[in-house]
């Protein structure tokens, strides 16, 4: 493999991993508070379509990203109300959110199909050709790690994820913490979706996330609920995708569909390989509904 090809693979691996990092970190915060959100796919789609629409309308990619974050935070607020406020089943609510996102994004993005936008500008730093969201992934992961593992807020949030009743007994407000975690998750998933349409592809197409939301959920398990491990895990997935594009460009005859399966199968293999041990890393109260204490 030539140096140029390698550089191309690495750089496009990083770029396609960015949306996964944001969405994965968002899901991680939510799961640390005990809430599984299967609707990340829908949130990313809302972020991608609203972000693209806002960029096309205002001409500013930064406003586009902000709109993406806001829109999917709002959408996740709906999910948060249903699962935390009304104690609904998290899996069914998450899938409902996914359908909601597919529909809303199709409606919001329709008038903008085929528009040409000014993408998120690349800012060269130390010879690296990335956009600002890409540079921010590492500081964000470190920040979230610090917040979760080195602050009182993070301790309370993780305690909520392990056992809301114990957190409540310790004088915390589990539901408030869960709302905060889920809204952070929505915001980050929206930014991830926005990066996809505004920086990576610079187009909007229906269901363009193509399962990335579900990969983000797998990433969290893969990273053993540790924000710092989300980045290497996302890079692995980005690399599979990038390699596929580069091999095609290099004229190597391998069906793109076969390569596209790699990330999903890889996740499954690694989960199977880790087996039961990973379970010890999962928040004990994950997916359980906290019905309050007597």
């Amino acid at each position, binding site marked *: 493999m030539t140096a140029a090809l390698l550089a191309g693979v690495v750089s496009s691996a990083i770029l396609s991993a960015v949306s996964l990092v944001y969405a994965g970190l968002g899901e991680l915060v939510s799961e640390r508070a005990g809430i*599984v959100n*299967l609707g990340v796919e829908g949130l990313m789609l809302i972020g991608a379509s609203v972000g693209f629409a806002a960029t096309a309308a205002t001409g500013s990619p930064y406003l586009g990203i902000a709109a993406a974050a806001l829109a999917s935070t709002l959408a996740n607020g*709906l999910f948060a*109300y*249903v699962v935390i406020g*009304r*104690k*609904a*089943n998290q*899996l*069914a*609510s998450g*899938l*409902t*959110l*996914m*359908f*909601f996102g*597919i*529909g*809303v*994004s*199709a*409606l919001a993005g*329709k008038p903008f199909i085929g528009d040409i936008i000014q993408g998120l500008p690349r800012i060269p730093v130390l010879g690296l050709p990335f956009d600002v969201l890409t540079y921010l992934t590492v500081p964000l992961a470190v920040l979230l790690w610090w917040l979760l593992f080195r602050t009182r807020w993070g301790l309370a949030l993780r305690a909520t994820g392990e056992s809301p009743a114990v957190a409540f007994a310790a004088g915390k407000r589990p539901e408030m913490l869960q709302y905060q975690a889920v809204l952070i998750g929505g915001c980050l998933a929206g930014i991830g979706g926005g990066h996809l349409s505004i920086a990576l592809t610079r187009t909007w197409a*229906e*269901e363009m996330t*193509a*399962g990335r939301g*579900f990969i983000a*959920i*797998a990433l969290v*398990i893969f990273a053993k609920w540790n924000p710092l491990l989300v980045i290497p895990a996302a890079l692995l997935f980005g690399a599979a995708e990038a390699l596929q594009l580069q091999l095609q460009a290099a004229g190597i005859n391998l*069906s793109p*569909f*076969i390569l*596209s*399966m790699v990330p*999903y*199968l890889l*996740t*499954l293999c690694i*989960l*199977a390989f880790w*087996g*039961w041990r990973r379970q010890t890393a999962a928040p004990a109260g*994950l*997916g*359980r*509904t906290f*019905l*309050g204490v*007597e």
Partner: protein
Amino acid sequence: MPHNALAIAFPIAGTKAGRAVATALIALAVFGLLLAAAGKDPFRAYLDTLAYVFGNAYGFSELLVRMVPLMLTATAVALPARIGLINVGGEGQLYMGALFATGGAIAFPEQPSFVLLPLMTLLGFAGGGLWALLPGLLRAARLVNETISTLLLNYVAPLIVSYLIFGPWRSSESAAYPESTAFSDAARLPAFFHTRIHAGLLFGIVCLALFSFFMAKSRWGLEMRAIGGNPEAARRLGIPVFRYTVAVMAIAGGVAGLAGMSEVSAIQGRLVMGLSPGYGFAGFLVAWLAGTSAWGIAFMSFLFAIIASAGDILQFTQGVPYAVINVLMAIVLFIVLGQRQSRRAPR
């Protein structure tokens, strides 16, 4: 994910009629506002849908056609739910069923119907079953949670279909649009009364009836309920939990595979991309809403089919993308989710 997920995921539906009507009206109003905001006419859209679905035989028959995959994929969720397993992989299992059935139709184009259709049915069942067997084994061996593995496999199955119809199975007649060779007439499920209502409806009815019968009347159903109630206690009683986990997942996948078989054989007549507009996921929600009753599944499939028909109408008459109908479905579900369990939550 919790092991007592069954109890949380499938509370028996007990919605009163009045409440259901209120839910429908609120959902229609909210969705109407959304349509109005997008510059469409919601009243005309709703009237068009009613006229289409109940105004003529064709529209109503389309409704029944759409019910078939929903009933089958919902059964594929309700069955493993009885032993506390959550199968979110109906979509992938549907695609694999379609793929295997297509393999049969393409391999034996000369065979008569009475050979080919049973063969394709078996292959469809086998395809979906194999696709769910892996998550079943991984779960039974306590390696990977079945929720995650079935979800991930949903995305692999359509890619295999794409690979085949862009590659080895691509029809030489249609250069522009990738699809498999058209099936011979013998490989098409027969339709009834000059409509598109097809024998797949029988698959749905038979599967639901068998599901209901075995759960209520057989020793298997009893043992499955025991596993669902407390897997550890069931194990101590000598019930083979491992075998049940693997077999139930495989059978459930097979049922979803039948949905794929009936879609390619009766509706499409060939293997195409975008075979399912999310039937597998919608089936999960149907099963969740319906609880575990067969009548509930049939009724909820009917309701979801009406919503899907509204999507067709919106697309044709108002130029709205078909996917928008997912919003109406989601609003209904969010309202129902918001009502559920709130009674049980102490405040």
